[in-house]
């Protein structure tokens, strides 16, 4: 117990003795990890957005204009018996025209010029959750297209695919930047620990002479590295949260992307803890690298 207390006290003494170096290490690690965090936050929110869009997908099944009413009923029966269909809403030609006029009042004169209502009747189909994956939706749409009386099946898959491509790109950038900046964080902490090791080289030599094992000598420095990493990571989360709230505030005041701010989300507590653990791991790794470089025989 006393040994453990000694090791922890030594870590604290190391950090307190090199106060300025410790502060600089925590701050630079925080800024570095915050850069990674920005991409991670963007990635998490875009993924969530893609998920909502996919969950909210509505498929428009347009009917042939010349379709007789009993054939319409057949199409409806076909769709209702499909286990992939969760809900079905019929929109008649008249309803479609009414909606168009309501949504685009300034453009409604365009349709009046045509004489007759050109908008087709349609079904708005929502699929069951297990059929909402992009592939399932695609397969389902192709199958429905083959039904007699169906002229067109439309859904916003292109939009979702484009978003998926953006997300994949951000994912790659986040991984790339994450790896590079994590290596930077490891280097920053490694250098801090190296300075501490250098400052305490005489003490380390004495400890070796009186029979301290390698792990006894190393533990305070490993703890110090882990603490620096964890504090840096925690500070980066504070910075990110601040920037995130500022961004949301800005969205609300300017009125741009109204409503979108309520859909945005910060990392949940479990992810925050995981990120602090990652920071701790990076710090530990940095310290380990430094100790190895300092020399097996010395520390």
């Amino acid at each position: 117990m006393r040994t453990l207390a000694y090791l922890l006290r030594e870590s604290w003494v190391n950090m307190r003795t090199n106060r300025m170096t410790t502060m600089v290490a925590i701050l630079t690690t925080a800024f570095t990890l915050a850069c990674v965090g920005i991409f991670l936050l963007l990635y998490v929110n875009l993924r969530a957005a893609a998920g909502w869009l996919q969950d909210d997908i509505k498929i428009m099944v347009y009917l042939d204009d010349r379709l007789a009413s009993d054939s319409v009923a057949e199409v409806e029966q076909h769709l209702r018996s499909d286990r992939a269909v969760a809900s079905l809403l019929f929109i008649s030609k008249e309803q479609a025209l009414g909606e168009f006029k309501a949504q685009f009042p300034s453009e409604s004169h365009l349709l009046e010029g045509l004489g007759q209502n050109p908008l087709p009747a349609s079904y708005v189909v929502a699929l069951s959750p297990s059929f909402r994956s992009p592939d399932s939706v695609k397969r389902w749409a192709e199958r429905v297209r083959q039904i007699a009386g169906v002229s067109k099946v439309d859904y916003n898959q292109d939009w979702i695919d484009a978003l998926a491509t953006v997300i994949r790109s951000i994912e790659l950038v986040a991984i790339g930047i994450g790896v590079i900046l994590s290596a930077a964080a490891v280097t920053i902490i490694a250098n801090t620990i190296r300075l501490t090791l250098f400052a305490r080289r005489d003490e380390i030599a004495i400890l070796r002479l009186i029979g301290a094992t390698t792990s006894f000598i190393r533990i305070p420095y490993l703890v110090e590295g882990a603490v620096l990493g964890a504090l840096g990571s925690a500070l980066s989360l504070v910075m990110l949260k601040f920037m995130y709230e500022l961004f949301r505030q800005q969205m609300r005041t300017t009125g741009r992307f109204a409503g979108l701010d309520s859909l945005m989300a910060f990392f949940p507590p479990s992810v925050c803890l995981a990120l602090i653990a990652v920071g701790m791991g990076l710090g530990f790794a940095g310290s380990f690298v430094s100790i190895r470089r300092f020399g097996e025989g010395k520390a």
Partner: protein
Amino acid sequence: MIQLIHISKQYDQRPALSDVSLEIGKGEFVLLMGPSGAGKSTLLRMLIGADRPDEGQIFVHQKNVTTLKPSDIPYLRRKVGTVFQDFRLLPKKSVFDNVSLPLLVQGVSSADIRRKVTEALRAVGVEHKRDQLPAGLSTGEQQRVCIARAIVNGPVVLLADEPTGNLDPVLTAEIIELFKLINARGTTVVVATHDPLVMAQVNRRVLTLSQGRLLPEQRGLA
């Protein structure tokens, strides 16, 4: 207790020790004499595994130091106390904390640490300085603290490398008396020195090194 068999060591093609063989029995008090550069410190460093010979074998407390794995060396050093000319005390730690270090690294309980450190400080006569920092002590007191640290975990061997190099004749005599007391309790003591004053005070076995070679044995003057 200590056995060296045909030990040789070179640094940059220059011989530090040449074919040195010797034996030191349990409970002996041995002076290792010789001028600076004779190889005394090299020999002591080899006894604690801080350096390895180019040739030969070294046994300390029945352990072959030359073949010890690096991970086993700390356990050898826990049985061998070391005293240095420059004391090597941690400047930011109190006398008590300095002396407790060898026990801390072994995971000794707090109660035992308190008891053993108090005993060691009392044995060397600096118990009243336990809460002071090394900088607040005289050189003689610093050397006593260094000796307390070396004996606190009851080593079987005590090695001292020029322990009186920084001390005046009065303090030298006091420190030598301390070593005699420690030796009287059964600890094997090896003191490396070039100081004839020490030899004059210790009527014990004297091993003399000269340019890395061991000269025929003599005894200290009474």
